[in-house]
């Protein structure tokens, strides 16, 4: 799933750093992108993901490090000599040119005859499904259509690399999810190596072959969406991809027990961590169960008695915010299937017992 058979490193980012004066924006970034791969750079704003994309395009210059594209060192090549197409968040469509002229803009500068340009432009219009709109100006097109024109324009010179800078964030939710699929389809059809910047984890997870999670100028983790969700290696990744409760406590490796306040939890995870103090227990809200009946509770493991502080309806599930009586300020989130909340008549202020699924518990080093 990570890479196709026989795919090779198309883009190599080697030890890239960028600083503006004293402040580091990117620090020692290493990254390989394979031919035909769809890679997402994901992170909160200010993590350096857009800067990395702009360095790959040459619109921004790195302070240190090298970039190799298709076996060629391009670290210092000017933008116009690099082989890529780009779609900006604002699309940057030329407002005084119609859809067709926008798409043909790069082609017209090449020494190609008019018939060839016409043919190629029409193919691109068909590819993005805008044959009927070729004469419309950007202002006459919807947001989604504008986005498609920008995509077609970026692909017009048949670049080896497609760069997408938050391409969907200006669109409303419905158009966004439709375009996600379309972009993905086109990308696969053309086997076009693509790097997309986004801050939206759903978008990253649903589109990317691999996701690069970035945090404050460095790479926190690289992996397939599945790997990142199931096996986050830092609390940051755990809480950025989906939601994760993080409880601070102590870990006894010999007995595989985690101590949280007065509670002890058994851990099945075969961890290499040997520390005792300052460790974080992570568990996703959906991996916590509500224990309805108090029968035989002594035999059950990993149970906590909590009070319901808030109930949020999220459609198919309810998210409960619960607290321990001894530690009211620390919220624990529990996702419960809606019927269960309704049939048990759960209310704010109720006391319930929750169980942390042993096999789902993760442990992280705490740097707090």
């Amino acid at each position, binding site marked *: 799933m990570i890479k196709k058979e026989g795919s090779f490193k198309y883009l190599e980012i080697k030890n890239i750093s960028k600083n503006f004066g004293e402040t580091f924006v990117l620090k020692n970034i290493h990254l390989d992108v394979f031919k035909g791969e769809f890679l997402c750079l994901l992170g909160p704003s200010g993590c350096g993901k857009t800067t990395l994309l702009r360095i790959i395009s040459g619109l921004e210059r790195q302070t240190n490090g090298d970039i190799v594209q298709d076996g060629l060192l391009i670290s210092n090549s000017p933008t116009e000599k690099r082989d890529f197409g780009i779609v900006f968040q604002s699309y940057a469509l030329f407002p005084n040119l119609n859809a067709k002229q926008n798409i043909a803009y790069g082609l017209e500068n090449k020494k190609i005859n008019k018939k060839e340009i016409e043919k190629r432009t029409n193919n691109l219009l068909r590819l993005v499904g805008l044959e009927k709109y070729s004469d419309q100006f950007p*202002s006459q097109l919807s947001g989604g259509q504008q986005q498609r024109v920008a995509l077609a324009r970026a692909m017009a010179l048949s670049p080896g690399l497609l760069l997408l800078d938050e391409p969907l964030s200006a669109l409303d939710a419905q158009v966004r999810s439709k375009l996600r699929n379309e972009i993905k389809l086109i990308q696969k059809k053309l086997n076009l190596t693509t790097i997309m910047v986004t801050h939206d984890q759903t978008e990253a997870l649903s589109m990317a072959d691999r996701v690069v999670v970035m945090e404050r100028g460095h790479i926190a983790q690289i992996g397939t969406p599945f790997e990142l969700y199931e096996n986050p290696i830092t609390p940051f990744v755990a809480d950025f991809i989906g939601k994760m409760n993080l409880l601070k406590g102590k870990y006894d490796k010999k007995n595989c027990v985690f101590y949280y306040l007065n509670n002890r939890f058994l851990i099945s995870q075969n961890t290499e961590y040997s520390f005792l103090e300052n460790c974080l227990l992570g568990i996703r809200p959906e991996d916590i169960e509500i224990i309805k009946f108090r029968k035989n509770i002594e035999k059950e493991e990993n149970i906590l008695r909590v009070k319901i502080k808030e109930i949020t309806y999220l459609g198919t599930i309810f998210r409960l915010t619960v607290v321990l009586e001894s530690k009211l300020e620390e919220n624990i989130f529990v996702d419960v299937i809606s019927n269960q909340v309704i049939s048990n008549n759960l209310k704010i202020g109720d006391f319930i017992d929750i169980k942390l699924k042993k096999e789902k518990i993760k442990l992280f080093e705490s740097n707090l």
Partner: protein
Amino acid sequence: MYFKKNFNKSFNILLLRILIIFVFILVSFFIIIPLLPLFLKSFSDNKNNFIGLENFINYIQNPSLTQSFINSLKVAITTTFFSVLIGFIYAYALTRTRLPLKKFFNTFSLFSLYIPPLAVAIGLIYIFGKQGLITQGFFGTIPGFDINLYGFNGIIIGEIFYCFPQALIILVSALNLSDQRLYEAAESLKASPLRKFLTITLPNIKYGLMNSFFICFILSFTDFGVPKVVGGNFNVLATDIYKQVVGQQNFAMGATISIYLLVPSILAFLIDKNFQKNEASLISGKSIPFKPRKNLIVDSIMFIFCSLILILVIGVFSSIVLASLIKIWPYDISLSLQNFRFSNVAGNGYEPYFNTVFMSIYTAIFGTIFVFFTAYLVEKFKPLKKIRMLIYFFSTLPIAIPGLVLGLSYILFFNKPSFSVPFLDFQIFNPFSLLYGTMGILVLANIIHFFTVCFISATTTLKKIDKEFEEVSESLKVPFYKTFLRITIPLSLPTILEIGSYYFVNSMITVSAIIFLYPAKIPVSSVSIVNMDDAGDTASAAAMSTLIVLTSLFVRLIYEFTSRNVSKKSSVWINPLET
């Protein structure tokens, strides 16, 4: 280990660097370097011997000259106060009230921009002068009233005419940026109208207010036309420079007085620049424009106020036209076109008029190209940041350089066929001296004299155009100059036309920058107005003024017509939701 692509050098970036450096050299030679000989001159006698501060000391010890300095300050402060006050009330009426006939008041308020200050002064003579309509009670039909035009009063009235529309433009755009929601929030908190004004309106326009103070101060402190015609014995710095240079050929003292004129202007400029640095828009993109409510009392007061202002403006203009058409004011008030023959005035006939029209056309064409290209290079690119910042600073400077000072510094700089290098016996040919004595130097002086306003308006427009267009073009391997021609220019066309018409109109009406510079073989109309007025031939001066105003208005009409066509054509680009 890897193939190193041998294409790291980009022709386009090289070209861009060369262009930026070229523009830097041009603005340096047109704006900054000509001021140096002026400074040198102020420290020399008329035989070019260095005499230190002697000129400045002589100046201070001469009571009649120091009086001029005080007079100039008095004029500037009084004019600034009234121009900004009138401009503010008028702008407030246009933007924040339900003034009846708003469109009419809006269009005609800027009418006086097309009347040269010289012509305003001539118009005032025909209303308030010795034989004026009001002074003589409309040819004796009603009791007359004398306001003592010649002197301080006349200068102030003339300067207010000249400065008030400038303040108005700035304040209208400042007041237009408003947020209805702020007023609604204040209302819900039971704020009084005065409190709303003091806490919302005023803080929002403080930058515009400051800027209009600065503009009016400089314009009225340095203006030459009005005091020349109606100043009488009330001397100001600008008329002193003229007398020293043209009357006594005393260039050294002319240069010294120029420094006295330049320093307060530059000071005002720096204060304003420093103040504007902190400008941060208080109005977000989401703001809802203010919608004034009906208020019978306020609206009526505003209507009366604006009508009075307009009656004065139109009255002055009509009196100029009338004066040009009347045979011999006030003795033979029959109408004739004899004043338009200009045959008895130094024999130049229509030559000055056509020279001025051509000069204005050249200024509009070359000025617009130069200013727009300069703004484009400064605004749109990344290389040579420090040099671009210097170009930006130099480009904002001309607004603080009085026309007379610019003209004098141009004479001193451009008439030198070569420069001597200090401490070395070595001469460098001055290529710009070739312009001396040609129409070229007049066009150049006009381009630089009005550079700042055009530069700021070009920069503002270019800022609004997405910077990513250049980046997209780079990614599509399209060189920047193609994008400039195909995207940037079409998108900026309304502003480009506006700059062209601004240059044309101002070159038509200006006198101060070119009065020292015009070659004898190229007489220009604004100078001939001064000369005709000096010779007592005020009717011909009025006739020439009428021609200038009508030409400016005609060009403005062409501009309005063209720009309407352009915006009709480009309306398809603009999102209907945004308009």
